[in-house]
């Protein structure tokens, strides 16, 4: 689990950079996080060569499906940031509903790939994978939240 600590440190460093240039940070974060996540999974999930042969192609598909949701989420966040100082009720509701839909979409992708993994790998391996995957995802989620300000409530809200 030492690599997880390095990964957290990495995220913190990247976040500090965010203060200077948000869009560069987002690109760097996206590419590095995907690479680092895969490395962490590799280091902590000891697969036989036979298991690795079936696991990694499905993992790459899974990672790609999640990356598409992340892109949509970043668009939603970007829309929120653009409207941040003048967020009306209609816009807030649409952003909120979109965020919830994206959460559901992510859960659907995880469930779909859970079914795929469980069909070809021992449940203990699948369990270990999803433990690691969720842990990494939570770290990313918390790090991303740190850079998103809470909604400012006006007296009319």
């Amino acid at each position, binding site marked *: 689990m030492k690599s997880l600590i390095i990964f957290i440190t990495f995220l913190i460093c990247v976040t500090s950079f965010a203060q200077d240039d948000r869009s560069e940070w987002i690109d760097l974060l996206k590419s590095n996080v995907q690479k680092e996540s895969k490395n962490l999974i590799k280091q902590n999930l000891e697969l036989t060569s036979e298991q690795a042969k079936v696991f990694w192609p499905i993992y790459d598909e899974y990672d790609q499906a999640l990356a598409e949701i992340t892109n949509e989420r970043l668009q939603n966040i970007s829309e929120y940031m653009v409207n941040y100082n003048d967020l009306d009720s*209609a816009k807030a509701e649409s952003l909120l509903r979109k965020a919830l839909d994206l959460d*559901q979409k992510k859960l659907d992708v*995880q469930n779909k790939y859970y079914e795929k993994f469980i069909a070809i790998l021992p449940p203990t391996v699948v369990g*270990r994978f999803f433990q690691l995957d969720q842990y990494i995802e*939570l770290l990313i989620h918390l790090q991303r939240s740190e850079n998103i300000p809470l909604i400012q409530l006006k007296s009319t*809200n």
Partner: protein
Amino acid sequence: MKKLFVFFLLIFTSIGFSQIESFDSEYFDEVKQDAWGTYLEIIDDNLVLTEEQAEIFLPMLDQYIADQNKVADMRLKNTEEYMMNYYDLDDATAEDLLNKAVEIDQERMNIKREFMAKMLEKLPAPLVGKFFQLDARIFALIDLVRMSSIPLVREED
């Protein structure tokens, strides 16, 4: 939000030394109660409501917490079963635990969706949005602490 980080940092540190041999459900129960207490404090500190909004929001919040608490209990039970089978986790138990974990995640999402819809009917969207921003951050921290306290599935010898 600083309060939350300090609270969870303390739990995080103490859990690092916890043993796997026994699952202290009382301890986890206490942590859960403290977590809800901190949750309420953070919502209270960050969500300034008019008297009229408070009258609508607070009973909904109580019900939301009660429903999410049931989900937390389901998760605690699942974790307990995992810990009890930790050293001798067979495929059937692992798959059963994973299936339950998937159901629990979906149940949490269903509750969130239900209450978001109810709140949006009666409260301004920016207010509801801010509540769910806080809720998501607190849950992410709770999940991170929970996952850090649970060992990864053992690899087969």
